């Protein structure tokens, strides 16, 4: 046997090859390297049901445009920090295992150092950072996930081996959903269906806004300048920079953003019609493609709902008065689409079945019989005969 085969270099290669396999075969040894957990305790502005249900991830409600824009604060707790570690070193993975020192050697960008936090020799360390410190908030990117590695370290950035680490998976979605299309309104007295075609994607809800007499119902509301050509009706992911830049305090018309292009609005954004073209309405300067901020919807329906019944009386409409209805789609990251094109509704006096059979002579339509009204004697006779017959049969049967 050639002795060089058993030389020190060969032995080193052998050990290097076998060590990862040994780690896989010995779960206890492998688990020892990942003893820390990262639990989210607070995401500023979120309700409790929108927080992660388990440690190590923020994926149930992805980080959205508003949270990225506002650099929302996230408070996390890192548990099981080893006693010897003086720092928690945060890295963002670009698809690599950042617990491996080879991935943190700086030769490529597969792992990016973020920041470090002192442990103060505590086993549990609270860390509060802005969302921009953790993830790439480049606007317009559709849903993507990033993994944050938290390393037990002594230096920052830590490029050597670490004794412990934890991970946090974060989903980020800074692309707006498309606005609903093919809006349909109509006329009615107490209920007018407003319909639309759902936009693509997994939507969380739809927000319904109404403009009556040129004023947004519920007050508030401002139009954010869509900036770049809005593609509300066109189906693109990027509707331009989000919200607050260039926000108008009033409801000024964002002329030229009639991006829906599907009919129903005029170019100036001051009027609209229903799908049938029989109802016209004042949109108060709003038009398809506008980004509405800080406005109160008149109704909110689910993400898979494509029709809502509007009671024009709830909007304060009298007979002959109309309103413009806009719909905004909201995705799972709570990103809002631009406004849909308007659907016009008009309150009109209507005649239904009850009125047609002549039951509405008095105030209101009560075409039902008054309680206790007399029944046909023939019908009552049949009831009595049936009961008597049944009684006879039962008695005869008992006798037998």
């Amino acid at each position: 046997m050639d002795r060089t085969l058993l030389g020190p270099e060969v032995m080193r290669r052998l050990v290097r090859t076998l060590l990862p396999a040994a780690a896989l075969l010995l779960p206890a040894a492998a688990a020892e390297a990942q003893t820390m957990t990262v639990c989210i305790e607070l995401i500023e502005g979120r309700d409790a049901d929108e927080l992660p249900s388990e440690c190590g991830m923020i994926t149930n409600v992805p980080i959205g445009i508003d949270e990225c824009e506002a650099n929302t604060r996230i408070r996390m707790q890192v548990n099981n920090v080893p006693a010897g570690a003086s720092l928690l070193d945060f890295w963002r993975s670009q698809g690599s295992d950042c617990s491996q020192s080879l991935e943190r050697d700086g030769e490529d960008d597969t792992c990016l150092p973020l920041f470090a936090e002192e442990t103060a020799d505590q086993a549990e360390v609270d860390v509060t950072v802005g969302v921009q410190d953790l993830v790439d908030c480049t606007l317009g990117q559709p849903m993507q996930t990033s993994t944050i590695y938290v390393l037990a370290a002594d230096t920052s950035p830590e490029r050597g081996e670490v004794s412990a680490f934890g991970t946090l998976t974060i989903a980020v979605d800074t692309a707006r959903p498309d606005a609903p299309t093919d809006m349909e309104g109509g006329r009615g007295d107490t209920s007018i269906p407003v319909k639309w075609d759902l936009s693509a994607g997994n939507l969380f809800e739809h927000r319904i806004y109404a403009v009556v007499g040129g004023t947004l119902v519920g007050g508030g509301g401002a139009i954010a300048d869509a900036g770049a050509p809005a593609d509300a009706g066109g189906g693109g992911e990027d509707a331009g920079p989000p919200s607050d830049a260039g926000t108008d305090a009033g409801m000024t018309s964002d002329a030229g953003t009639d991006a829906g292009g599907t009919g129903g609005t005029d170019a100036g954004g001051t009027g609209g019609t229903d799908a049938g073209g029989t109802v016209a309405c004042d949109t108060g300067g709003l038009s398809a493609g506008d980004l509405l901020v800080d406005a109160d919807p008149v109704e909110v329906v689910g993400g898979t709902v494509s029709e809502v019944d509007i009671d024009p009386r709830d909007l304060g409409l009298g007979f002959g008065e109309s309103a413009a209805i806009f719909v905004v789609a909201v995705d799972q990251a709570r990103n809002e689409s631009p406004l849909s094109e308007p659907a016009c509704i008009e309150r009109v006096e209507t005649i239904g079945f009850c009125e047609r059979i002549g039951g509405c002579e008095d105030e209101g339509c009560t075409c039902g019989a008054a309680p206790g009204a007399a029944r046909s004697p023939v019908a009552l006779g049949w009831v009595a005969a049936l009961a008597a017959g049944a009684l006879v049969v039962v008695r005869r049967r008992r006798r037998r």
Partner: protein
Amino acid sequence: MARTLVLVPVTLAALVAFDASPARAQYVAERQMSARPAALGTPERFAVELRGGPYTPDVGPPLDDSFGDDDGPLLAGEIDVFLLRIPYVGHVGIGGGFGWTRYTGRAVTPDGEETEEETSLTLLPIPILAVLRIDVLARELDIPLLVTGKIGVDVVPWSVTKGNEDSGSGVGVGLHWGVQLGLELDFFDRAAARSLDEEWGINHTFVFGELFGSHAEDQFSLADVTWAIGLGFIL
């Protein structure tokens, strides 16, 4: 109504065809060879029927103007309780049912223009009946045919809506009658039919067509003479 008139001859033709078919011969042979004649099955106490068919109350132009050609359908169920068996005739009993039908259309403006607002009429017929179910053909002559007559009272709660509002409701009452022709399905597989009886107490399964009339009235007529088809079980 024309469809009603078609139903009866079609059923009769099917029965005639059945009578001459090999299936008929097999059915008779199985009945004769059976160690346990059908009459010796579990006691027959109930009949359960599920049915559907058109129903258009005789309201006239207001109904047509509001709902167009909407003819229901009326979906209903019925349970009959057999109180008495008349030898060589069949069962006498009482029955009760529950049905549902709804008509929808568009409300119009006073000028007659159609709007997007919905108006509807909902009927919930509840017949209370005396029932005579003649099964002598099936039990004594091996012809799997049931003839049933029903007569009683229809109680018909109804309600009308327009948009978000209930604009009227009431209860109509009137005579209800029906004539039913049923075809027992046991002959397809008598062993399975017996098994159903032994395990579930279902003596017979049958399909049927029924011509029936309701003469219920309230402020307006809820009456109609129409037909239904369905599936029934004798338990």
